[in-house]
């Protein structure tokens, strides 16, 4: 039994929304990062499902690239979070507010 494509999309959208929810509610920078990863992975689900659906590999290859990019992004992100902790003694993203308005 093949599962209809719409269920994959539904799943990925759910995942995307969970990630979004995490971004909007979590104040910890690491949780923020994880939430972003969830969103990216939601996209990956889509890509792979659609690659299967369309019968071409483009989506799968892109999914690999997206994973690599996400990893690189996390690497940079962790670096920034490290210096953030050193400067602000906290990884709460709402703490640094020296610049506003």
């Amino acid at each position, binding site marked *: 039994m093949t599962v209809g494509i719409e269920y994959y999309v539904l799943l990925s959208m759910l995942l995307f929304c969970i990630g979004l929810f995490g971004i909007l509610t979590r104040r910890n920078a690491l949780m923020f990062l994880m939430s972003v990863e969830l969103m990216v992975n939601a996209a990956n689900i889509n*890509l792979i499902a659609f690659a299967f659906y369309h019968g071409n590999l483009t989506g799968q290859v892109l999914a690999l690239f997206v994973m690599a990019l996400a990893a*690189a992004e996390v690497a940079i*992100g962790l670096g920034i979070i490290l210096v953030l902790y050193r*400067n602000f003694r906290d990884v709460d993203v709402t703490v640094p507010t020296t610049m506003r308005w």
Partner: protein
Amino acid sequence: MAVVELPEWAALAPVLILAGTALALFVFDSINPRSTNRTVLAGTAAIGSLVALGVAVWFTVAGVGASGLEGFGAIELFDGQLVVDQMALYFMIIVAVVTALVSVASYDYMEGHTYQAEYYSLVMLAATGMATMAAANSLVTILIALELASLPSYALVAILKDNRGSIEAGLKYFLIGALSSAIFVYGISLVYGATGYLQLDAIATQLETGAADGEFAYGGLLGLGILMLIGGFAFKTASVPFHFWAPEAYEGAPAPIAAFLSSASKAAGFVIAFRVFTTAFPLDATSALIGVDWTLAFVILAIVTMTVGNFAAATQQNVKRMLAYSSIGHAGYALIGLAGLGAGSELVMGAAMMHLLVYGFMNTGAFLFVALAEHWGVGRTFEDYNGLGQRAPVACFALVIFMFSLAGIPPLGGFWSKYFLFTGAIEAGLLVVAAALIVNSALSLYYYSRLVKAVWFEEPPAARDSLGQPTGLYAAIVFAAVMTVVLLPGFGPVVETALDAAAAMIA
């Protein structure tokens, strides 16, 4: 015709040169870690970007990628994943120019900084990403190039590791960037799902067939996907509502990096937006499928962006932050180029391209002036700039040129591009947008002239020591000022090139 028949991939030479420079800097740093030989490092970066610039200009003049009798036609590489045409070269020129200016200016600005080699190699990497964005012709390459431009930018903004402002800026830039790129990737996945292709021309073919057959079932997915793609571009170009990172990132980042991001990065964001929306989503077919004209989104974004940018800039106290908001406002102006595509005229998109080129000079110059002020250590607010004109007349005169050009005062370059945008908007029937352009320009004159007034007409707050004249910064500022002025006589060829490139995209 070229004497030597170059292989096709040589068309990517500007990008390859930038990448090579970045790698060379990494190799240099590997051999000689923590080197602080600023001359070699800044020199390598500057020469690399200048060579890339030279090659790009040469290609443009030689007609690489141009259609018609003289040209070679658009060169497609790797199955159309990358394409080198007039528009790609045009934006490579913008990126290379700004990179060169920033490299030269950083020589003085980054004096005494620990991570010299990393700084320049990151700049070059980001420039490589931006130049690749100019040539990217598939959602895959676009995504990779965009991330290649973004990731070093995050690091560059936060490179002043002991400066809380820089870190905060980097954090905010990164977080919003990560969110936006997640949205962008999701948009790509949806567009892929709706069409089954990632290569732009293939997407367009698919959409047109679908529109013709009437058997296209994924209009909703496509619409949401396109909207999410717009989100990605909006982030890169600092357009509302994805602009929130910009004021802080520009304010906190080292001033040359702010210049780099607000000029080159913005231009690169626009080039992919131009390319994606002209190539992949033909207006008629797409409107038929998703039921709404996507230019409507850009009309809204353009008006809101220029209004938010200019209004928020009006009452800023911090000069750099004012420039940051003005940069958002200018993104709104350039968005008219996409908003006006509905009329099928190349004028409005060509005008946006011209604006981005002129903006590359005047805005970079303005931020570099801020870099100079930070180098002097005079402070950051308008009051701190009071009376600088007496001490540094040359730089302050250049500042006047930048400010008036940004405001769009004739006969400076900024006036002409804005004028073309205005006529383009009128021609496209976007009277509301044209009116918003006028109102916002008028408002922008207020805060730009405020800076001019502070620099030239106000009395300095206290006796000031004589100010240094750092060679690199001065050279970059003066060059940018000269270009801002000279672009007017040279506007003929620029107009022609931009309109040709725009026409090639729309045709």
